């Protein structure tokens, strides 16, 4: 699916630009995007280092394993193939907590750590495991308590009540998280017929 969407975006873009007579826009957009990708990943280095450093302290101090222990019934249900006490669980929990609090820049480092740990359980290293798919579905459809960025944008636009969108966002993301879990269960069943 990703191959097809990737190809379609390129083909549609080039055809439309060609028909509109401004094909040079394709060249510019492509080169700019390629450079942007590198800038973006370099910006990630500092954030990654900072949050992974804090995560390591939290791990050594026992905070992560405490959280993992409290939420074990939930993670066992969502990720049946991750063994008990595996470090992946702790990173998954840290990532989802950061997402819920609206701390986008902390969520990514924790999430990438979780991916590394899930990859250590992967028998086919170039293929996504069911646990990874579940994790990404939870991530993109994550429950959000504080949509911090958009509150900032609304406040800057002189809204009479910038935070009025918090309630609807909580309801919408709560719903989408439930839907993500339901869809995930369906896909798991369709794709491998395995238990869980």
């Amino acid at each position, binding site marked *: 699916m990703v191959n097809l969407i990737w190809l379609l975006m390129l083909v*549609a873009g080039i055809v439309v*630009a060609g028909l*509109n007579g401004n094909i040079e826009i394709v060249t510019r957009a492509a080169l700019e995007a390629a450079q942007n990708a590198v800038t973006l990943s370099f910006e*990630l280095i500092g954030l990654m280092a900072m949050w992974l450093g804090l995560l*390591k302290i939290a791990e050594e101090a026992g905070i992560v394993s405490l959280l993992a222990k409290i939420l074990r019934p939930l993670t066992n249900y969502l990720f049946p193939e991750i063994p008990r006490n595996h470090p992946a669980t702790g990173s998954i929990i840290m990532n989802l907590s950061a997402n819920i609090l609206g701390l986008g820049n902390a969520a990514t480092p924790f999430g990438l750590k979780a991916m590394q740990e899930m990859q250590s359980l992967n028998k086919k290293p170039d293929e996504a495991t069911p646990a990874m798919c579940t994790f*990404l579905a939870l991530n*993109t459809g994550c429950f959000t308590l504080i949509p911090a960025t958009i509150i900032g944008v609304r406040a800057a636009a002189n809204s009479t009540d910038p935070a009025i969108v918090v309630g609807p966002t909580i309801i919408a993301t709560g719903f989408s998280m439930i839907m993500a879990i339901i869809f995930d269960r369906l896909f798991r069943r369709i794709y491998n017929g395995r238990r869980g």
Partner: protein
Amino acid sequence: MTEIVVEISRWAIPIILLLIPVYGYLRGVPVYETFVTGAEDGFKVAVKIIPFLVGMLVAIGVFRASGAMDLFAGVLNPVLQLIGVPGEILPLALMRPLSGGGALGIAAELIGSYGPDSFIGRLASVMQGSTDTTFYVLTVYFGSVGVRRYRYALALGLLSDISSLMAAIAICQIMFG
């Protein structure tokens, strides 16, 4: 309400930066040394995702800049009108899974031109706050561990995006419509 939420988001990171090291120190963790050990991984991961990010951002960039995305929005527009969704919101809905920065730009623009307290302004805010940049997340997360075959992850992510979009529209129509 507003003030509480704004204060929480202002304090969240400083409090985390305070609590974790202090608690760690009290538990006998050599905090600075541990921090540095953990931070080492940052560079490796960032470099590893570059090819994945270049591939995805180039396709998205061409799709956007050429006007193909706007054309696609024009085709979808009549369908959305039927269920009472203002057409102005469609570019945001299409951009949201592709590019976080792009979507925020469109949301800010909608909030600016229709007003933050208009129906469109509120709907744009809820949509921006309740969905995620699925393509970016998949690209970066899978890229960081070298997974190239995504299996059903993209379909799953997009389905969950569509359901949060639908939920955002329904809730805004009930509460603000």
